């Protein structure tokens, strides 16, 4: 879930919870407030009555009677005075049920015992609570509506504001994370934001990428230097031998020896070439933004390799749809991959053998290329190590090769996310299955 959705959800739920809590506690709150108000009202009434009695005497109310009682028309309030024992003392407010003219009513009642002259009276002042309860329900309803409206309103404001606040984060993700490609060659500019957290995150990411880029550059530099250090002496030797071969008075024996040296040197050159190529691929030093038709690749390979097919009298059939186009690949590397496999198919083939190259589109848009030869095959126990560097499955002299061809194939395949499987039967032949994921197929 995205941060903004989480935040919005949390804010909404917490607001809703608060409102619900408020709406449910509203009756109690209102009850409490009303009671407080009633109590202080009753006390005021009591003071008033006491004042009148203090000024005019208790007879103002009693008018000669033993006791006095009076209530308003709708029985909302009442007052009563009656004599009590002299030692009776009370001064309290409580809620009580009173039956007045057959109506049972809830009253908030203040009772107070006081001396008037030498007699003690008990005063009761009461006020119904029914009127208070009547308001509760509509109040609750209105409060709910108003608060829900407010929630909606603040929610919209929150949404806009969080969206505004989180905009730098989205920008960081877009520009620094999702669209960046290893090894982060292009410089990235800091995001403009006043939020320090985002600024910190942004700077950390920029620093991190710069470090990766530097490390990568060092690796690249190392490969270039290693290449230089290794290739220069090989070059010197090669040119020395060439100059020597050009001497007119060389006898046959010396010439043959020189050819032998040249051959060994060439072998060294090839190994170094292959190792550097593998290291360059592994270090991500090739661009992967070209498109290429598979059919064209195999045609090019056929042209490049035809002399070897003719020599071994091998029939090569290319059964590839012309419409299969790879994209997001390095053309030279794909060529090299296929070339090495076809080259192996020839090298480990029999005289008058055959090679069949075919394609098969799979569900989901991926594509499998099969290269099937009628060669000597690979023993079961060697299949797992065949892509390992310097492991040569077939060590026979006539087969030749130095075991790096398939390592290059493996590196190129890994680099592009291509998977390679092989089936083989000794004496019958080998089949390589090269699966291109759908994202490489145009």
């Amino acid at each position, binding site marked *: 879930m995205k941060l903004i959705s989480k935040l919005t959800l949390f804010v909404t739920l917490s607001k809703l919870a608060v409102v619900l809590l408020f709406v449910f506690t509203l009756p109690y709150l209102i009850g409490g407030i009303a009671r407080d108000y009633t109590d202080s009202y009753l006390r005021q009434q009591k003071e008033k009555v006491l004042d009148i009695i203090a000024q005019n005497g208790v007879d103002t109310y009693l008018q000669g009677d033993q006791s006095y009682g009076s209530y308003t028309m709708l029985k909302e309030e009442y007052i009563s005075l009656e004599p009590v024992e002299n030692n009776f003392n009370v001064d309290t407010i409580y809620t009580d049920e009173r039956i007045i003219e057959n109506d049972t009513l809830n009253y908030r009642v203040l009772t107070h015992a006081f001396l008037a002259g030498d007699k003690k009276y008990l005063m009761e002042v009461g006020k119904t609570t029914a009127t208070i309860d009547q308001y509760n329900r509509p109040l609750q309803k209105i409060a709910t509506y108003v608060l829900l409206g407010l929630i909606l309103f603040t929610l919209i404001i929150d949404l806009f504001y969080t969206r505004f606040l989180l905009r730098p984060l989205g920008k960081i993700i877009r520009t620094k994370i999702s669209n960046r490609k290893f090894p982060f060659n292009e410089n990235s500019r800091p995001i403009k934001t006043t939020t320090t957290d985002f600024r910190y995150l942004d700077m950390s990411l920029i620093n991190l990428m710069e470090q990766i880029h530097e490390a990568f550059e060092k690796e690249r530099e190392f490969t270039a230097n290693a290449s230089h250090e290794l290739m220069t002496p090989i070059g010197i030797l090669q*040119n020395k031998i060439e100059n020597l071969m050009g001497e007119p008075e060389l006898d046959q024996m010396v*010439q043959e020896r020189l*050819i032998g040296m040249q051959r060994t040197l060439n072998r060294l*050159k090839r190994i170094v070439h292959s190792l550097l190529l593998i290291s360059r691929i592994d270090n991500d030093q090739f661009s992967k933004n070209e498109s290429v038709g598979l059919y064209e690749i195999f045609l090019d390979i056929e042209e490049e390799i035809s002399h*070897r097919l003719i020599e071994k009298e091998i029939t090569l059939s290319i059964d590839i749809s012309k419409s299969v186009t790879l994209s997001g690949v390095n053309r030279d590397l794909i060529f090299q991959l296929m070339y090495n496999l076809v080259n192996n198919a020839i090298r480990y083939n029999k005289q008058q053998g055959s090679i069949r190259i075919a394609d098969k589109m799979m569900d989901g848009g991926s594509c499998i290329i099969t290269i099937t030869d009628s060669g000597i095959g690979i023993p079961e126990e060697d299949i797992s190590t065949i892509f390992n560097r310097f492991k040569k499955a077939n060590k026979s002299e006539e087969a030749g090769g130095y075991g790096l061809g398939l390592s290059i194939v493996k590196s190129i395949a890994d680099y592009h996310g291509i998977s390679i499987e092989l089936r083989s039967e000794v004496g019958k032949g080998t089949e390589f299955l090269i699966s291109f994921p759908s994202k490489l197929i145009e």
Partner: protein
Amino acid sequence: MKVLLIEDEKTLAYEIEAFLKKAFYICDMAHNAQKGLEMLGMNPYDFILLDLGLPDLDGLKVLQEAKKLNPDAAYIILTARGNIEDRILGLDLGADDYLPKPFSLLELQSRMQAISRRKFNLNTQEINLGEFVLDLQKRVVSHNQNEVELTRKEFDLLSYLLLHKNRVLTRMQLSEHIWGSFADDDYDSNYIDVHIKNIRKKLSAFGPVEWLETVRGVGYKIRKH
């Protein structure tokens, strides 16, 4: 033809110089960029062979500077760095060719010849070879105005042997020239022999080809005076 070789690896430079002198080039050497640019400013050269990995200045910068001093010369970049980017950059900056180290001196001469043909139009376009005439520009072999049909590779082989006439070329050298980095490891295989056999067969239908010699155990050569 005057050549300036800017290469800091002295042993290599001397080998290249020795080879070029034998091929009748006049060759000057500079072992660093500064010296090289100095010499370029003083003398006119037809070819500049430039190593990219010089100690005092980046090779591509040297190329830019040198191009200002002598824009008409042909530039060939020699490098062991092997970056594809370097190659593209070098050619973009106006280099005429690019040879990754280690390279064959024979290949170097072949490239230089191709450039002089293209750029200076100096070399004779038509070369006599026994009763045959090779037109390197049109890439055809003819005998008394009759064209002998050779494949692209067969013509390449013949012209390479002709360029290095009177010198034995091994099967390995020939196959490296024809197939480049795709030349196979098993040099004893007879692709070259097959091609040579085809060339002989096609040519001898028109006239004698005794100038194309087989040197047993070594390779082939064209004898020509």
